[in-house]
């Protein structure tokens, strides 16, 4: 699914990723944890092709394709989805309109016809229900006036609609209360399938109580310094990141 080899990237002349390697197979869930400033969010941004992040070395293959050569929208159409840590508002553009434009673009890329409006609307309502958002949210501007929790649920709604191959969740749990956290986790779990993979970037272990990962990696100073199973997360919770950073492990 995704192979990252020795990835190096910088932001505004500052090296952030310093040789990161990761291999994600279909159906797997990988959690990436690490202290602030380790490069967790940078990883998601680099993979999804955000402007301002410069790749200085290494390679990223997504289903065999070198995606570093593609524009952000092309990567998205290939099936790479990023759930944002801070979803931005787009006033006046309804959620429904936004989702339709997004789905149309992705389906066109796959060589499929645009979904007819009725089927689309029905699907959108169904997914709305699944993430516990009132249907009125479909008519409202994208994230316009949404609470923090509603914004995150909206991200999951988009993910469900677009059915990506690889989902990167960038600290989706930050700022969520326990109820919202459960809704988000249920949403993700319902999307688990043998041909869909997840990279879950998080600072805290608690999200992993609900979304159980196959692998946990610790990112520190731009590199993966330790990898293990789900128990690694618990160990981190207990000992803190300094345990790894100080090279005691």
């Amino acid at each position: 699914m995704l192979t990252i080899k020795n990835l190096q990237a910088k932001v505004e002349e500052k090296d952030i990723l310093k040789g990161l390697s990761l291999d994600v197979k279909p159906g797997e869930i990988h959690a990436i944890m690490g202290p602030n400033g380790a490069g967790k969010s940078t990883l998601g941004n680099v993979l999804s092709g955000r402007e301002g992040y410069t790749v200085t070395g290494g390679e990223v293959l997504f289903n065999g394709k070198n995606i570093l050569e593609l524009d952000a929208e092309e990567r998205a159409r290939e099936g790479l989805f990023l759930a944002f840590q801070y979803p931005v508002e787009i006033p006046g553009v309804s959620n429904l309109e936004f989702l339709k434009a997004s789905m149309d673009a992705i389906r066109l890329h796959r060589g499929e016809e645009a979904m007819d409006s009725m089927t689309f609307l029905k699907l959108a309502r169904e997914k709305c229900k699944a993430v516990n958002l009132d249907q009125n949210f479909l008519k409202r501007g994208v994230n316009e006036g949404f609470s923090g929790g509603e914004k995150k649920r909206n991200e999951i709604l988009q993910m469900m609609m677009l059915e990506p191959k690889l989902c990167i969740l960038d600290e989706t749990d930050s700022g969520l209360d326990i109820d919202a956290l459960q809704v988000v986790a249920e949403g993700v779990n319902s999307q688990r399938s043998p041909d869909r993979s997840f990279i879950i970037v998080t600072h805290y272990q608690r999200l992993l109580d609900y979304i159980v990962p196959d692998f946990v990696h610790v990112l520190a100073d731009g590199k993966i310094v330790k990898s293990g199973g789900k128990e690694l997360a618990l160990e981190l919770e207990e000992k803190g990141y300094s345990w790894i950073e100080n090279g005691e492990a």
Partner: protein
Amino acid sequence: MSQEVEKYIKSEYEAGFVTDIDAETLPPGLNEDVVRFISNKKGEPEWLLEWRLKAFRIWQEMEEPQWAHVHYPEIDFQAISYFSAPKSMEDKPQSLDEVDPELLRTYEKLGIPLHEQAVLAGVANVAVDIIFDSVSVATTFREKLAESGVIFMPISEAVHKHPELIKKYLGSVVPQKDNYYSALNCAVFSDGSFVYIPKGVRCPMELSTYFRINEQNTGQFERTLIIADEGSHVSYLEGCTAPMRDENQLHAAVVELVVLDDAEIKYSTVQNWYPGDSEGKGGIYNFVTKRAVAHTNAKISWTQVETGSAITWKYPSVILKGDNAIGEFYSVALTNNYQQADTGTKMIHLGKNTKSTIISKGISAGKSQNAYRGLVRMNPSAQGARNFTQCDSLLIGDKCGAHTFPYIESKHPSAVIEHEATTSTVSDDQMFLCQQRGIDPEKAVSMIVNGFCKEVFKELPMEFAVEAGKLLEVSLEGSVG
């Protein structure tokens, strides 16, 4: 923004073609003889010629206004031709079948519904008056409208058929001496639309005028007069385009609306005059005076989508003369490349409990300058009057400018005036969210801009709202880069 995007740039102004047609065009220049020529050409009565000459003399004494936030080389009014008409129009065709097919094809290419058959088949419920350079080419559905007493015809014809209405109302809202360009218009106006809606009549269809400048070096000076008699209602639309030419062309129109007691006029404009090329060469100078008088309980709603013209200088205004009158102004003004716009409204409250609403959305891209200029005046008689103004600017890129010049004068202690203003940009975060969801950058910008304009678009008649959205998309092409 990525280089990928620059590939999408080069936008084409779709209405930029020239119709190859034999025209009778006056040589450039302006003097009393030109005024007499135009008046004579229309077979006007003596009083109207005198009215024009008076305006011309006033104009000669006036100076070009300098206060607008726009810059352009001095206009040589002697280098402009003040009259041009297709030769085939000389023998005044009686129906569409007799109109030069080349002219009809022009409108077909522009997507304007002229054939009543097609319209009746449900394409759109709109009657159209089409003005080509200095003359009206055709007006559709006149018979059908006449059944309900609605008069919809070229103003040059109304001068002959309804002299009492013309004499009473022409210049009653925008007098000859009002301003430099309106004085010029009074002197040399050639054609335009005339509408009269009788007492208590709700006009059975949308009325529309489509303005087209075709000839080179020609100015267009049209004049529109709409009278809504007591308790009547009409929705009127206007559209404008011109060919792409390297030199600037002048368009100085006057629109007067008279809205009598309990009547309502909804006036919508989609202005898409040629804006000039991406280097700022060519384009229309759009210097327009639009004003309405609202009598007791009357309502006027101006909605405008301004995407064209090299320079726009335009302030559709409402004089709220009668008690409880309502004035509304909804505007989207988009400038790209080197376009300049100085546009807004004036709401003059005279009557008691009069209300006005101003929603202005300015979008600047490229190296353009976009200014909102508005006046809200509460006169000493305007007891209990209210105004709400919202003025939003959206910037795309970092080489453009947005300016707001609100003037507020309140002379009655009970008047309430609210003013809100915001300035925002199309942010990188918004762009990235769209791209990360597979939407290409051009589409993303147009979606974000359309969202920004939503409050105004919802005021447009439906067919126009769709057209306006598309127009924004085209006008924005190349703004991401």
